[in-house]
């Protein structure tokens, strides 16, 4: 019944966010929008880390590839939302499909290191392929999309609601995924891949599918990220982004979807709150990470839950 509780808590959080949003000033609303987008990224990683047991440290790659696709298409080519969305999704999925071929053979720390290295490749491209990505300067002036709705997406509130709906769609799809027979398969792989093989599962194939799907959802988040920031730069694909995502999942409790989403919101608010007082955000992040691993390896909610 852990599942149902996650859904209830998640829905309460979404309804609360939707309810208070009109009352908020611009800055908190911005953070809320950011949290909703990053929550999708965290949930996409949770499919890998929490359900399949694959600790990817390169998730910013798919997120960033999609963000760059949107950035380039929306500025240089002035393409509309639909084209950008599809292009972002396709590129992120393709990137994951290629990276998955290289990474899935490995497990544990090796998998972590390979995904980290692959993530660095994307970062390197973003940084050095100046003709395409404008390098360290980043791509500025990504316009908010026109969705054919009566409200302008340039205003923070309508944009927040669109992002919230997108996040809900992603949550619903991922929720169906993890409750499907395929989702059970992934959990079986997490628990014992040798037994899964003996039962007749092509473990590699299922891991690979999970990897690609996870990349696609990370890309979905990346599309909205580009629109939200109006700016895409190598920061979006750097290692710190991947690490933060991993922390969100660890903090919220891997294998629960709603948990990592709330973990994402927590990190977003913590980060912005702390950086008012200090520039050493990474130090705090590291401390939180160590604390979670030491004291709450099943996430903060898991630490309060008794042995199920």
């Amino acid at each position, binding site marked *: 019944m852990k599942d149902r509780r996650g859904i209830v808590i998640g829905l309460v959080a979404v309804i609360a966010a939707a309810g208070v949003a009109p009352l908020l000033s611009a800055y908190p609303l911005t953070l809320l929008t950011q949290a909703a987008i990053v929550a999708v990224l965290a949930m996409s990683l949770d499919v890998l880390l929490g359900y399949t047991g694959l600790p990817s440290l390169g998730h910013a790659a798919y997120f960033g590839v999609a963000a760059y696709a949107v950035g380039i298409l929306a500025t240089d080519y002035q393409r509309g939302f639909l084209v950008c969305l599809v292009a972002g999704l396709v590129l992120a999925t393709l990137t994951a499909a290629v990276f998955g071929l290289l990474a899935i053979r490995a497990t544990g720390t090796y998998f972590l290191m390979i995904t980290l290295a692959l993530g660095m490749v994307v970062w390197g491209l973003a940084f050095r392929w100046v003709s395409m990505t404008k390098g360290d300067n980043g791509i500025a002036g990504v316009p908010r999309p026109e969705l054919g709705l009566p409200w302008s997406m340039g205003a923070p509130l309508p944009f927040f609601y669109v992002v919230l709906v997108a996040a809900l769609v992603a949550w619903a799809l991922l929720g169906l*995924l993890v409750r499907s027979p395929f989702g059970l398969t992934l*959990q079986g792989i997490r628990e*014992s891949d040798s037994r899964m*093989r*003996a*039962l*007749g599962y092509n473990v590699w194939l299922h891991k690979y599918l999970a990897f690609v799907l996870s990349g696609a959802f990370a890309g979905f988040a990346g599309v909205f990220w580009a629109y939200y920031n109006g700016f895409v730069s190598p920061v979006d694909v750097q290692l710190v982004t991947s690490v933060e995502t991993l922390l969100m999942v660890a903090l919220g409790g891997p294998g629960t979807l709603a948990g990592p989403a709330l973990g994402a919101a927590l990190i977003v608010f913590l980060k912005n709150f702390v950086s008012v007082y200090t520039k050493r955000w990474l130090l705090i992040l590291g401390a939180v990470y160590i604390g979670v691993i030491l004291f709450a390896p099943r996430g903060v909610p898991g630490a309060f839950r008794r042995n199920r």
Partner: protein
Amino acid sequence: MGAPTWPPSPQRSGRPGEPGAPLELALRLEKVSKWFGGLRAVDDVELTVRPGERRALIGPNGAGKTTLFNLIAGALPVSAGRITLFGDDVTRLAQHRRAALGLTRTFQITNLFPSLSVLENALLAAQALTPAKFSMLRPRGGFGELDTRAREALRAVGLEDRAQSAVRHLSHGEQRQLEIALALAGRPRVLLLDEPAAGLSSAEAHLMTSLLRGLDPAITLLIIEHDMDIALEVAQHVTVLHYGKVIADGPREAVKADPTVREIYLGA
């Protein structure tokens, strides 16, 4: 034949019901070897198992029994030799493909999905060989046929009351029963049981023995068992492995009486 076999002719006459029927073997190993560096863990093993047969594989510690299981199941590649399953050459086939042909195994050291429920464990086994395992957008509750099959397997081993418990809350004996249920839910034709009674109390072992004796007679059983009493109660035929070689092979009474076997294994 690399190893001396017992009885002298490995061909056994058919059962009363099937006189002279052409024997399609469930499992056949020809000169199967596995070496790890200089160690020949499995050495030129010949083994034939007829459909529906109950065969025990015994031998002292380190005789290569589990390694042989890993070779048959496909968890390890053979170094040499040939393995056929119902006439199909499976020597180079991946483990999951052999499972798809009806070959399943259990593990000596309990190998389950500890944080999932008992029913979820059985469901994983039930859906393993169906296309449903790729279904991504339909909740698991929508697959009644799989649910029925999973519950049937649990009932077969007497675990239907524990369906909702997490596996790690089961007793060791119950976990051993679930090991069998997982193997059964896939409806195997050939079942490899690796010490099903490992670590069980004598009462639990007795329960396991009657469970194994009650299995569908169509299923071919190859069973590794340390406990001779259990092995001989379940199986009519026995193959003895010693230092990777088959040293005896035949009906249980004959193997029991075999002087070499008595010397090295039974310690008599």
